[in-house]
């Protein structure tokens, strides 16, 4: 994901601001990292450049 995506995404649960933490970046593309809700503290992973912003209760049963 690109960092400017932060302008339009939010926590899917409470719609509050997310805090970005980058562990791997390649030429402006964020490859691995986390997005943490500044309000409820829920942590959403960024994997292979794609943020997984599914609500926590959908993460497991959506892995068919």
């Amino acid at each position, binding site marked *: *994901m*690109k960092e400017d*995506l932060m*302008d*339009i*995404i*939010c*926590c*899917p649960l409470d*719609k509050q601001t997310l805090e970005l933490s980058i562990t791997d970046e390649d030429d402006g593309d964020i490859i691995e990292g986390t997005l943490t809700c500044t309000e409820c503290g829920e942590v*959403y992973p960024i994997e*292979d*450049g*794609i*943020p*997984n*912003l*599914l*609500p926590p209760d*959908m993460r497991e049963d*959506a*892995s*068919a």
Partner: protein
Amino acid sequence: MTDLAERRGVETELYEPAEDSALLAGAAVDGVDAEDRVLDVGTGSGYVAARVRAETGAHVVGSDVNPHACRRAAEAGVETVRADLVSPFRAAVFDVVTFNPPYLPADEDAARDDWVEVALTGGTSGRAVVDPFLDKVGRVLRPDGTVFLLVSSLTGIEAVVQRAGERGFSSVVVAETSFPYETLVVLKLVR
């Protein structure tokens, strides 16, 4: 539902672009400006999102619940977010939202246990995904924003128009194509 999947030439992990995708992309291209920010919900292969971006120059983001779809769309160069409909997007950030939803009515006992089922079927009414989408899309859309929604006669176009109306949208058909077994329309929704 396997026969439907075969008829539509789908693979097992995601829904491949078909007539409905092309109809939606064509209608959306006509309604998008270069400076618009667009969300393609249920982007699948990323076909609609990539075409809208290529043909309009707009900033397009795709979302899908299916991780295989997210990967494919990202490989197609679409900025992709794994999401349940519009839930992780901020209020009033999109000028245009496009959606080719799962809309085929499913048998009562058909399990949504594989990704193609998830991509094709919308519960017994065909509206199990369209209805929550209509309930929620208004939040992420700018006040003067537009939704382009693919609907099949099998889903009940009137029922979708009525639900949209209850959510403050007026609907107009901007594209249509007919097959022996169904008619597909693109509804343009505005407030």
